[in-house]
């Protein structure tokens, strides 16, 4: 029996925030487990984080090659069993490319990379990372990406909005929405989405860079707290 959740972090060639995610997991009291893209082994983890970076250089569409990496087969069935999977930035792009999350990420409307702290409005508590949060609440987390503009076909967008699959929207600190707070031009200011079951979540902002007040905001802390709780309940189920 583990008394702390084992959370796997996948390293693809070109992953950049994999070590940072492992540090954040450790700082939040979890046990980080390094996973390797070319393996077929999830090493008995209770949850999986797909980290940020530029997997395989992202020279094709972002995340397109990583979505076909050997370990992704295991992650797909892990997700289908209802276990928690969190995709951050490039990890979000990979989950969309893998068909585990709706929509796609394209170049920022500005056509420029953007790195800054943003506020996110929580839209649902029905996910593995927002279970402890209240819809309407805001958290501060940094973004850093060149291709973070979430888009979807009109049918897909209707389903995402209609089924409550939006997890986070870019907003002002008080939760107000407006283009000024949208760093990449994302459709409906969507920063993160979930699958129907809520166990798979992807977001462009970086909660792993928002757990240590010495180096940034702290809006990522509750997300890891919820992820650990989901991991533990999955582990005991």
């Amino acid at each position, binding site marked *: 029996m583990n008394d702390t959740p084992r959370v796997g972090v996948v390293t693809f060639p070109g992953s950049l925030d994999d070590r940072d995610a492992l540090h954040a997991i450790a700082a939040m009291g979890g046990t980080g487990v390094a996973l390797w893209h070319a393996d077929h082994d999830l090493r008995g983890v209770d949850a999986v984080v797909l980290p940020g970076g530029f997997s395989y250089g992202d020279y094709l569409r972002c995340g397109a090659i990583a979505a076909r990496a050997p370990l992704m087969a295991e992650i797909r069935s892990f997700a289908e069993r209802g276990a928690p999977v969190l995709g951050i930035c490039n990890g979000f792009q990979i989950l969309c490319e893998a068909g585990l999350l709706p929509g796609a990420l394209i170049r920022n409307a500005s056509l420029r990379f953007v*790195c800054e702290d943003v506020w996110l409005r929580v839209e649902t508590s029905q996910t593995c990372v927002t279970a402890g949060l209240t819809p309407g609440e805001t958290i501060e987390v940094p973004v850093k990406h060149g291709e973070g503009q979430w888009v979807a076909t009109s049918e897909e967008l209707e389903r995402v909005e209609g089924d409550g699959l939006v997890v986070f929207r870019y907003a002002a600190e008080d939760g107000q929405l407006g283009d000024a707070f949208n760093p990449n031009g994302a459709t409906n200011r969507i920063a993160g989405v979930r699958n129907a079951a809520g166990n798979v979540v992807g977001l462009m902002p970086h909660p792993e860079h928002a757990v240590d007040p010495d180096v*940034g905001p702290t809006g990522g802390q509750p997300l890891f707290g919820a992820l650990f709780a989901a991991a533990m309940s999955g582990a005991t189920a």
Partner: protein
Amino acid sequence: MSEPLHRQLGLKDDEQERIVATLGREPNRAELAMYSVMWSEHCSYKSSKIHLKTLPTEGPAVLVGPGEDAGAVDIGDGDAVVFKMESHSHPSAIEPYQGAATGVGGIVRDIISMGARPVALLDPLMFGPLTEPRNRWLFEGVVAGIGGYGNCIGVPTVGGEIRFAEAHSSNPCVNVMCVGLAKADELVTSQSLTPHVGSFMVLYGAATGRDGIGGVSVLASATLEEGADESRPSVQIGDPFAEKLLIEASLELIREGLLEGLQDLGGAGICCALSESAARAGMGAEVDLDVVPLREADMEPFEILTSESQERMLAIVHPSKLAAVEALCARWGLHTAVIATLVEGGTLTIRHAGEVVAEVPARSLADDGPEYDRPMTAPARIEDGGDPALTPFEGDLNDALRTVLAAPGIASKRWVWRQYDRIVQGNTVAGPDSDAAVIRVPGTLKGVVASSDGKGRYGRLDPYLGAMHAVAESARNVAVTGAEPLAITNCLNFGNPERPEVMWQFAESIRGMRDACSGLATPVTGGNVSFYNESGGSAIDPTPVVGMLGLLRDYRLRVPSAFPQAGLAVYLLGETAAELGGSEFAEAVLGQVSGMPPALDLSKERALLDLLVAAVGDTLLASAHDCGDGGVAVALAECAIGTGHGFAVSIPTDLPPHVALFSESASRAVVSVSPIDEEAFRALAAAYRVPCARIGETGGPRAVIDAAIDIPVARLAEIWETTIPRLLGEAV
């Protein structure tokens, strides 16, 4: 095209004779190509060496001085910081995105080859005025290239500076500094590892193509004239993904103890790495070019030898470790090729298609290049506008402050650094909006602090003082965070050294750097010389850029530059004299770059640095900001803009108000102090003999200085933040 081959390759006639004397025969084409790149200014430092030797390079903290791929300093507990700065100006002038991108890649490999993990990048940049479309293209391309590469390799870009001057229209300067961390006893240097006869030289990383051939000799060691765009094929193309794999694979190779030597491939490519590695080992090598992985099969030997294709490293590997090295590289998806075997003697014997294509002493390439004591002439003092402090000024001081804050060199660079990943690795305590970047050493409370500074205007007016100021200002920027300045790296940006006036500027700058580094006890651990930054006979201002490294014992003590709250006492430290020569005010308001730069008294500077470090250590300061460009008026405005907390101050002075506000007298800082700490702080300042004037308090929404300045902070912030976006034609 009847020019002899050696001249086409950038070699002088006497250098050709020297090669013939070395070999005892005429060199063939491949050999000539090798000497041309290795004896280029860029690789051999032939014009600068004689002056660089005079710089102070030793100190208690220095672990590795000049001569290795990068310098290193000791920060205690067995931790070492590795750092170096380089230029990639000529390639960037021709192809800004790739030029800047590969500049980042090159300096990062220098850090890796020391066995250190790269943890921070800083980019000192210089451009022509952004009112010119071509300058905007260069500016946007360079920034995109730095971001495109840096963001993709997982090394945060945390600082730098950007300056503008007309001379940079044809000669933008792109300098890049990288900082890395290693355990002191795991540093890879020529002393730390022992190669054996029979060991292999293993090339790993990207394949070799036709990009960047002659980059160091054709591009970097000559002036850019008409038709320079045709040199575009000499610019290398970067692949940051491959670089990221190189970082991880190289650090693993070192950690696993699999190497007997490691060198990056940069300028002069395989030729440089082979000859330097062999010369360092005191051996020769049998080289087989047929096994080098190529992008184009029909490459000539000289092309394979001198290609500057990026993202390649050369390791020396004992035969018993070869299989492990190959397996480790394969895991990261990297090619490996055993291109050479170390042999006794000192000869590089290079074969291609079964034939010996070159046979030269390794040392003759790496160490025995020419060394020049070039003629120097002090230029006639230009009759300029004289001392700007004597120019009458009747204008409105509020307008003057707005004008200076809107000067592109002063204005916020947020537009730029917003495009850089500043937080990856999770240790960025302070980034580009701080006077110096602060990077936490993982697992400790220590903070590595870095700043880069250099001001061409001062150099133009007096290269000796200009270099001194670059050292002093970078030290001050490090000290205002609370860190003790330890050592510097540099990038020396100058015109054509074959012109005696430029050589004089260089020698004077080195003299200034020597004196300042000695006086402030911050030795030089290495750096880079970038000559030939001129075109049409017009050179850039002499601009030595200093990369200062400091240590903060506890990063949590770090003091911000902006006023953190209302109700604090504001102090001006140091003395203000009538010094507007080369100032932002003189240029932006009076339209004058003339007179002399401010005087610099190193003992006063040292006292200020010591006071700042002591005061931060005693937690007496709420904020501290360097008082430099734009004088106390701009320093105060910046302190307020950062957080929105205004101030009301009165500056005791006998100087005319505009001089008092905008004088750039050295060795000054603006600090804020909590009322309960004032007495202790004043006592400390007295103990360090630093003049310390309480000039007012923080608070309110306005910036108020005597009867001279009264502007809402929000208005100052708007001016400061929107200047660069406006110049780039963006809606703001």
